[in-house]
């Protein structure tokens, strides 16, 4: 059995009276891709924001390679091996594509891919000298991915990287993400596209209204009554 990279225990997050996350728990192992699905507003991105230090959880603990993460800052989390991409890409628009990746690479602990290798990996080598703000949305998402990879993360949260891509591009991105699992990295993939997830993940967690309603294989999830109700609604309701 591979080593556990990340474990969440009873994570809850409230915004005033709204419970965005309620006692969410899961773990992900090295070399594993875990899918995180749920309708809009189910708490997927909030969960990433909690794990990646943007929000402090109201309850629960997070463990990275068995070590409990206390209250810490996003840059320390990034350096210690947790990173993410963004649902709405967030490149440093006025910097060049190369500089976007260089910043992160400069803060990496240990070895990893060079900036050139990363840019080639995310198919942005041709645009290295161009301002990141001039890239299209799909390219900006790949740049987010490249920037995260520059820190050689142990666990990477990928937030809707496939949105807006055509089937050929989706297959390419799925293959790209799969190759990231080599070397013991763990992926947590947030996605609405089940076909994309099917090519990529081993199991999924389904969230609804901040609560975990399913945990298991993707095919089983698609047959699960509550998951169907959440995604498709109830006939005659």
């Amino acid at each position: 059995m591979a080593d556990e990279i990340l474990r969440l225990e009873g994570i809850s997050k409230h915004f005033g009276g709204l419970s965005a996350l309620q006692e969410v728990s899961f773990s992900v192992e090295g070399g594993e891709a875990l899918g995180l699905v749920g309708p809009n507003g189910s708490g997927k991105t909030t969960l990433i924001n909690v794990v990646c230090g943007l929000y402090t959880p109201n309850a629960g603990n997070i463990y990275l390679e068995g070590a409990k993460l206390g209250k810490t800052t996003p840059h320390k989390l990034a350096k210690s091996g947790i990173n993410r991409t963004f649902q709405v890409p967030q490149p440093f628009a006025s910097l060049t594509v190369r500089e976007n990746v260089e910043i992160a690479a400069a803060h990496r602990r240990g070895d990893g891919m060079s900036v050139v290798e990363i840019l080639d990996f995310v198919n942005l080598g041709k645009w290295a000298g161009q301002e990141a703000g001039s890239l299209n949305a799909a390219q900006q998402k790949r740049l987010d991915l490249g920037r995260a990879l520059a820190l050689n993360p142990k666990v990477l949260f990928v937030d809707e990287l496939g949105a807006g891509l055509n089937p050929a591009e989706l297959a390419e991105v799925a293959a790209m993400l799969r190759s990231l699992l080599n070397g013991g990295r763990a992926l947590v993939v947030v996605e609405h596209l089940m076909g994309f997830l099917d090519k990529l993940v081993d199991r999924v967690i389904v969230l609804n209204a901040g609560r975990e309603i399913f945990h298991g294989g993707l095919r089983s999830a698609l047959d699960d009554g509550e998951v169907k109700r959440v995604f498709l609604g109830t006939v005659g309701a």
Partner: protein
Amino acid sequence: MLDSKGGGKPLAGLLRRKTLLLDLLAVAIPVIGFSFGLNFYSNELLLVYMMVYVALAHGINISYGFTGYLPFGYFGFFGAGAYGATLAILDLHVPALLGMLFGGVAGVLVGLLLLPLFRLRGAYFAIATLAAGEAVADIVANPSLQSITNGPYGENLASVYSSGQIYVAALVFMALALLAVVLVKNSRFGLSLRAIKESEYSAAMAGVNVVQLRSLAWVIAAAIAGVGGAIFGWATTVFYPSAVFDSAISVFAIVFALFGGTGSVWGPTLGTVLLYGLYSAVGLSSPQYFQLIYGLAIVGLILFAPRGLVGFGRAAVRRLSLRRAGANG
């Protein structure tokens, strides 16, 4: 040669060297120009003030242009520097030139005191620094501190006045401020500051220690304002709190920086020389039209060159090269 982390192509290295060379020229040309300035223009005090404002505009460049924090209360550091230097010269009897460093220290101390303001963002941050600057001014001008700061009655540095030393101090100060900007712009520190300006959280996820770096940028900007205030006070000789804790100082420095274009080494210098030159020319020759002409110049800037002169120039070059490429293609 590629290193294991950064990597890079020879072209990128060449472009960086070219950029660094242009940036160093942006230091050398003003320094040479002001070194011979008195041969062409005899108003020494105006040239000293202009050099101080060039440096101040670059302080704004570091705080706002690179990091994204607009300090309307920048005059608080400036005034603290003027008083810090004056107290060191008059009470501690340090030589005037050394006193300028005390001005920088005073600016830094006020800057450190105001670090908690970084909990605020955008307009709230700008307004809070304005209030903090006024608060520092009120403390310094308080009659109950007359035994230390002379309260509202101002200070007099006539005993240490030396026009030659003041001019050289202003020149060296401006050169150091420009060099600081070149170093910031061409370093990983500067790159990280620009990332912070775009998105603090994304910068943090790229491993950037946002709190540490923006504080460092703030302290550098405060030190520049502190020394600037010290030289301004020395050159002015007799000054009152209202002269060195004047919000117009912040406004001028900000407008000069924005007019020239922030995030560059050329921009704030060009902005200061042109606008302060215009300000002085109109103010001396046609003071009745001063505010009208100055106001029109600023409105024109915002309408036609919102990224400043440097941004306007860059856009023009880009359009030209695209047109040429189109003609060749």
